[in-house]
């Protein structure tokens, strides 16, 4: 009964144009979407389709040219601690230890030191980094860094997790493990996740809703619900069906573009 679920993020008529030299590039056409609280939504599309731009607009890092983004009914005007961004390149503060990075948000809220430490320790534990709590980011592996980045936004009470190809730079094994951990964290915290990826496999594994985007200008071309039970069996025929459907949607919108290219 989706009507009972509250709309958490509403993207209303968002467009984005970038100034490039003398001309303008239309990065996003009109985007309309409503994302419910606690949903795990994947934005998927080829590179250049504007999926990262859309995510950055939701985060408040960029302003839409027209339209607006509403979070809990209020329009987004700037970055805020309710929306936690997890970047592909981690963006951890290199001069802070794991614990200090995770405690950064609570510290900005001027909480007493003891409370900051308690929150930091709680979230260090959530992502299983007790052994590395006093290490600096330069002493961590990619997977550990991304765990810190996730813990850092959750420790700051983010109830929307914005993830911009967060596992793109990781090796396959670490990626699988982090995908599993992310799903566990999501199940436990029930935060809303908007996850940008270009991997069909990853999107089918994680999301309960897929927004397929296509480029020139960026727009949402398909909205697919994924009802597969979790944990998902990637070798099951049902999973394969989702994957095939998703791949078809992605490529069907690339085909006309390819046809326009000169045959040489």
């Amino acid at each position: 009964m989706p009507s009972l679920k509250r709309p958490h993020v509403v993207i209303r008529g968002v467009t984005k144009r970038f100034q490039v030299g003398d001309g303008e590039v239309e990065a996003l056409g009109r985007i309309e979407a409503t994302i419910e609280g606690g949903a795990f939504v994947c934005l998927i599309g080829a590179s250049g389709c504007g999926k990262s731009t859309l995510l950055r607009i939701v985060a408040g890092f960029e302003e839409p040219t027209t339209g607006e983004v509403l979070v809990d009914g209020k329009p987004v005007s700037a970055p805020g601690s309710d929306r936690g961004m997890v970047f592909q390149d981690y963006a951890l503060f290199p001069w802070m230890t794991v614990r200090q990075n995770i405690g950064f948000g609570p510290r900005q809220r001027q909480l007493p030191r003891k409370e900051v430490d308690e929150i930091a320790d709680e979230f260090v534990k959530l992502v299983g980094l007790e052994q590395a709590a006093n290490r600096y980011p330069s002493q961590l592996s990619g997977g550990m860094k991304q765990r810190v980045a996730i813990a850092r936004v959750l420790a700051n009470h983010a109830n929307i997790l914005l993830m911009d190809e967060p596992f793109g730079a990781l090796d396959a094994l670490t990626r699988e493990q982090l995908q599993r951990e992310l799903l566990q964290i999501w199940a436990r915290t029930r935060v809303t996740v908007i996850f940008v990826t270009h991997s069909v496999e990853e999107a089918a594994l994680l999301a309960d809703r897929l927004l397929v985007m296509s480029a020139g200008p960026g727009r949402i071309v398909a909205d697919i619900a994924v009802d597969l039970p979790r944990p998902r069996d990637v070798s099951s025929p049902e999973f394969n069906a989702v994957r095939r459907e998703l791949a078809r949607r992605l490529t069907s919108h690339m085909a006309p573009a390819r046809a326009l290219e000169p045959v040489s």
Partner: protein
Amino acid sequence: MSEQATALPDATQSMPEAPSAARRRGRIAERVRSIALGVGFPLVLILLWDRAVAITGTRLVPSPREVAVMMYDFSFGGVYDDAFSATILTHIWKSMTRVYGGFFLAALIGIPLGLMIGRIRILRQLLDPTINLLRPIPVTAWLPLSMIFFGLGPNAAIFLVFLGAFYPILLNTIFGVRSVDVRLFEAAAMLGCSGSAMFREVVFPASLPAIFNGLRIAHGFAWILIVVGEMTGVPTGLGSVIMDGRTLSRTDLVVTGMIVIGVCGFVTDRIIVLISNRLLRWSPQHHA
């Protein structure tokens, strides 16, 4: 320097595992070699200097032995018992107050100004051309004006040291701020950091490696400029000792002053490196 460079790979791996005895022996041998080479080279230079003076028979350049005697008298007295005997600490102290007066003043103004110029575009547009216009002017060219502004005395010296130390600190700080990954500002903003907290929590620590590079260069300049600064007619200080040595044609005193400045600069530079290694232990690139 080199022993820290070789220790770096271990530091980054730093799994809780004791280094084997063989590895520790290897590191000690490396360290001994590094010190032997570093100390050996100046000893060879002194030997060449001694031979060159002996072979040419010059009276204009003192031999290492004469300088050593002068150094002893300058430190403890009892040889010449003149105006310079046993006055080394007074001169070092006076010079240090000027070196560090100018240096800290430069850091105190240069770092905050650099952070703001790096971060605030309108300030950059306002000040950048002026800074780049003033920067190429040699500090020595300011000497006449500084004597008019500050008169004969220590303040003119402090001003000259300040001028020399200011630009490296300012420019490195600006460079440091400009090269901070924008993502870090975005990450901080989304975690609820803004305004002056952004300067304190992100801009400053993120620029610290570049700031320390600037401080180190500026600190070297400060010691270089002390001789120029103390040309402005102050009675004490290592620069004035050298100037006195020149007017009295006492080259042993001149060389003694040079060596003391060199040693002071060296020791204090090591202290700065120690402090920066401690504060920047998070930075894998910065164990110089």
